[in-house]
């Protein structure tokens, strides 16, 4: 901020000050975002049950977590539900994206809008409306109902991810395959699918995470037998603090970091 420079270019100085202020603000925002998570992870190793005072380092809560039957059972449920929902979402989403790219459909715009509805619709409305649908269809709530619900909000995310990748794909690729005598199905399987792999994988990861984290829609569509992990955590957290939950949260946070880094890596691969 030397005086002559400020005289000649008064604005850049102002802008620099503004930049500095924005940077400080952003740092505060990151602090706000990360301090609670850090506290949680830190306390998951604290011997104290009361959480506030640091008494010593322990793995006790992690050990207890591994011996907690409801948590393990609901974790198993969540993994099964997320896995099946992800497979369904990948199949529906990838073929849907490809077909919408490959063919010009009448009312393609309406279809595209409809696909976006489950992504932006309030979760609670989706939950209640699916619950009523299952009642009307007299479908007993259980694993099937949760999986149907989860697939419905997961597949649009896969579809959109694949669509973004398709936009950058050379259309000549498929034509070349067809000219060389491949059937459309073989061309799709041998040429298009390998090109789409990074987008499909990141879409699948997204679907899996969304399904693992989903609370509201599951709340309305599970049965006691198909209870998911987030519902179990919600029930435990309502009662108050529980050091086992700290440990579980720490595991969640670490998994999320790994997931984000991996998707980032995929994106870089795809960009190459």
């Amino acid at each position, binding site marked *: 901020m030397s005086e002559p420079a400020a005289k000649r270019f008064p604005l850049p100085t102002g802008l620099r000050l503004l930049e500095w202020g924005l940077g400080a603000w952003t740092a505060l925002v990151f602090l706000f975002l990360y301090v609670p998570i850090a506290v949680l992870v830190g306390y998951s190793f604290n011997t104290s049950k009361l959480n506030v005072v640091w008494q010593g380092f322990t793995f006790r809560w992690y050990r207890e977590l591994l011996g907690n039957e409801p948590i393990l059972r609901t974790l198993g449920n969540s993994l099964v539900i997320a896995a099946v929902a992800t497979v369904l979402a990948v199949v529906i989403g990838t073929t849907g994206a490809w077909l919408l790219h490959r*063919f010009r459909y009448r009312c393609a715009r309406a279809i595209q809008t409809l696909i976006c509805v489950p992504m932006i619709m309030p979760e609670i409305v989706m939950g209640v409306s699916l619950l009523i649908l299952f009642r009307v269809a007299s479908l007993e709530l259980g694993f099937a109902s949760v999986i149907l619900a989860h697939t419905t909000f997961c597949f649009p995310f896969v579809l959109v991810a694949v669509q973004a990748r398709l936009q950058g794909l050379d259309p000549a690729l498929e034509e070349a395959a067809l000219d060389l005598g491949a059937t459309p199905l073989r061309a799709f399987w041998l040429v298009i699918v390998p090109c789409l792999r990074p987008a499909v994988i990141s879409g699948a990861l997204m679907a899996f995470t969304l399904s693992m984290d989903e609370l509201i829609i599951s709340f309305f569509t599970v049965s006691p037998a198909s209870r998911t992990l987030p519902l179990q955590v919600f029930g435990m957290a309502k009662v108050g603090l529980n050091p086992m939950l700290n440990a579980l949260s720490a595991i969640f946070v670490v998994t999320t970091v790994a997931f984000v880094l991996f998707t980032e890596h995929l994106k870089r691969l795809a960009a190459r």
Partner: protein
Amino acid sequence: MQALPAADAENPHARRATPMGWWLLAPMLIWLALFVVAPLLILVVYSFCSRDDLGRVVFDFTWTNYARVFDETYLKILARSVGYAALTTVICVAAGFPAGWYIARRPPAVRDRLLLLVMIPFWTSFLIRTYAWIAILKSEGLLNATLLAARVVPQPLELLYTPVAVVIGLVYAYLPFMILPVYGSAEKLDNALVEAAHDLGAGPLRAFSEVIIPLTWPGIAAGVLLVFVPAIGMFAITDLMGGAKVAMIGNVIQNQVFKARNLPFAAALGVVFTLLFVASYLALQWRGRRARA
């Protein structure tokens, strides 16, 4: 959020859909019809039904459920939900806009790192993140312990299970959903335009309101939609952070379904909520068109 409506996937090589093309697309269309369109239609039908003493749904045409939504008790809860969600949205814009803007203006290497730092909380389960605040806010929690140790307060503050806690929880859960879309549109914005505004003599305020806001409006609008609407119906955060004290529309819907077993009334609340969502969407679109004009 990268997953918002993609720009039209115009493929110049696309062919008119053959019957085969329609057959192949049919499973997805049927899925959407069965699990998106049909439930919403049934929801509307149910909202006009009533229920008998055993909780069974009786199919008659009545406006009673809607009359009850606009009854004083529920209107108050609805207004409170919208108020809390609006406050959350305002705080998220105030905190998230400068951050999203700042991140977008960094050199690519720094920018990607900072973006990664937003993605981690974005993808971390909101349940876990809400739970983290319980440890901080409860009366023998970290914040109170710190304040007591620093002798700022003589006795622990009642923080958890208050409206303030609910808003903190909501802001914490939804802030990344504001930063990412703002970043998305700020990143596309040409810096030269902002500098041109300055060169042409616009003060920072004018440059902000007449150049920056209109050009980043799509991002702000997407962020508002991603924060405001879910925040209205979010019963989990109000349950965890507000105890049973702060009832919001989501809690009412949940109670009507599982405790009062009044599905028609829950359906009416759901329909009103959906209309609220559509209205805010249209309002944002309209504001966007005006800003561009």
